[in-house]
């Protein structure tokens, strides 16, 4: 039992963080929200150079051959920097699905050369389909890989300007089918868990960023002749947010480990991670906005770039708690 990331894992995280800090500034995220494709110019190429898209792809397919344990910290940072690209959908869900299905599309997606968009199991929308070359879709329990040119898209704007939601109209065919229903079932179950852990990691990063930004603000903002951050009410708001995030994070890391090692409890671990991270990020958003006051309510303040993502990603917490409940009460826990 050793609940600590390996030094190399932290080094990789730090390397990606350097790029994000430089390339994915709040100003560029804001610009991406206002852009046609909700992408930071050049960012995907930079991440591709570091191997991020193919972290879970085998080395033979041009990937890094790593596991969810290494990925989880990178995804956390994708939240910390509010990366607008659908990193979780593609890197944590799409790539391992293509990998496990031995799809010929894997190599180009894993290298970052071709951009994918992935329909998550049960999701009515596909995120980022407009900017994608290739779409991984589901039809009647099957998995299909479809070229962007073969689909039509109906946009449904999200409150989070980086999440370009689309309903996709397309014609499934033998040519597009990657997996039939029997093959797809276990892989889609994995996809559910990977999405849960991926978004949970991102929510932890979002929460940390909101706390950090708010700390900076309340140290600088003065009212009644002293920093707002010296008032006990503000201190306790932010302390509560930090407690929630610090307590959620290890559960997210554990769930990543359980996925990587296909531990029997991985589904419950994934749902627990998602439920806790959703609540922690919602609390951090609430406290961050309250401590900012009206300034945080302005569109021109950057806070909402993180806050809206936290709302968008957190709404399925009840579904995940219900999954944990079934495990505890019906299957006797894990």
């Amino acid at each position, binding site marked *: 039992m050793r609940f600590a990331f390996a030094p190399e894992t932290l080094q990789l995280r730090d390397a990606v963080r350097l790029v994000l800090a430089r390339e994915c500034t709040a100003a560029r995220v804001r610009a991406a929200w206002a852009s046609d494709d909700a992408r930071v110019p050049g960012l995907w190429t930079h991440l591709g150079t570091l191997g991020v898209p193919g972290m879970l792809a085998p080395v033979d397919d041009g990937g890094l051959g790593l596991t969810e344990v290494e990925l989880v910290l990178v995804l956390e940072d994708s939240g910390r920097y509010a990366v607008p690209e659908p990193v979780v959908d593609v890197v944590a869900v799409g790539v391992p699905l293509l990998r496990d299905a031995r799809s010929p599309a894997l190599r180009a997606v894993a290298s970052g050369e071709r951009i994918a968009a992935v329909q998550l199991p049960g999701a009515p929308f596909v995120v980022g389909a407009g900017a994608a070359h290739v779409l991984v879709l589901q039809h009647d329990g099957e998995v299909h890989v479809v070229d962007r040119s073969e689909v039509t898209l109906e946009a449904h704007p999200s*409150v989070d300007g980086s999440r370009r939601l689309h309903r996709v109209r397309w014609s499934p065919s033998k040519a597009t089918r990657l997996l039939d229903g029997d093959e797809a079932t276990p892989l889609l179950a994995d996809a559910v868990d990977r999405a849960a852990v991926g978004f949970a990691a991102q929510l932890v990063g979002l929460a940390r960023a909101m706390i950090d930004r708010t700390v900076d603000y309340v140290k600088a903002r003065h009212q009644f002749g002293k920093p707002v951050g010296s008032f006990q009410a503000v201190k306790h708001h932010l302390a509560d947010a930090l407690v929630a995030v610090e307590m959620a994070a290890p559960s997210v890391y554990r769930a990543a480990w359980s996925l990587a090692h296909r531990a029997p409890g991985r589904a419950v671990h994934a749902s627990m991670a998602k439920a806790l991270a959703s609540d922690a990020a919602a609390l951090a958003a609430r406290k961050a*906005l309250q401590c900012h006051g009206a300034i945080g309510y302005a*569109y021109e303040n950057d806070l909402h770039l993180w806050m809206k993502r936290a709302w968008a990603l957190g709404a399925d917490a009840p579904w995940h708690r219900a999954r944990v409940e079934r495990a505890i009460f019906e299957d006797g826990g894990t």
Partner: protein
Amino acid sequence: MDLTYTPAEDAFRREARAWLEANVPREPLPSGDTADGFALHRVWERRLFDARWAVVSWPREYGGREASLVEWLLFEEEYYAAGAPQRVAQNGIFLLAPTLFHFGTKEQQDRILPRMAAGEELWAQGWSEPNAGSDLAGIQGRATRDDAGGGWRLSGQKAWCTRGAFCDSLFGLFRSDPAAERHRGLTYFLVPLRTEGVTVRPVGRLDGDAGFADVFLDDVFVPDRDVLGAVHDGWSVAMTTASSERGLTLRSPGRFLAAVRRLVELARARDADPVLRDAVVRAWMDAEAHRLYTLQTVARLEGGKALGAEASVNKVFWSEMDVRLHETAMCLLGPDAELAAGPWTKGFQFALAGPIYAGTNEIQRNVIAERLLGLPR
């Protein structure tokens, strides 16, 4: 104690309901926090005024019906139940008008109130400044005497002026005596926004609508007749009626009763699980408790008592309730919760402002603790 409505009250309610049924636009108007939407809402305000529904509790001479507070609550219930448009006249009617009735001269009342009620002159509040938010007494905007012109010259910046980009006028405090201490030496001014020296910069809210504005004043002339109350006495002028904002008029129970009714419908439509149904029940009870609390407050006011720091109890409650109510809606919506165009998603963002505006809930809790419970400052 009599918790039945009188025949007169019932008749009032029926009349309001009938008019609203016949007149509320079938399709919701575009947001009143956009330029186009604001113009349409101004038309709606006029329509209300013409039918004497704009300011039901006001004297008849200014367009009201001299309705009791209970009747006013009934009107509000019907108004929100009918899904009627947001009130862009609200800040004038609920924030400025009570002060005008209390401190204004007859000339001011006659000149300002009818145009306010008719939507001809719409008012933005100018309380906050960039460095005076919770610490409202930190106001730096200054008023310099202009004896020659018979008035004052205002300079400074007012922030978070609701719909300031579209309104006609602004009310707010300016420092008329720079030598006086914080709460002293302030004067309450009524300032036209479309005049020389005023620059209005729209400020987007969370949802992107330009619901706010920064208002910059550079040597703006205001005649003496647009000083409200005594010179240098603006703080007490503003504070005397501030509790009505927090405690009664700003968010009347009708708004939440209507919201919670929609929430129950949403829960039914989405076949909510028992856990979420329990959250709906809590929201329903809260909205109902708020209605009853308000009726009790109204009886106290009708009995001649003033609304003091109790207003802060009300404000903390409704603002937190509104957030919980909308959080429950977001859970009920699941994957649809993030759709920007959804009314609940808009409403959720608006609810999040509740614990901040009209005095943050941190300030309100201080007020409750210090003024109602007597804890030391």
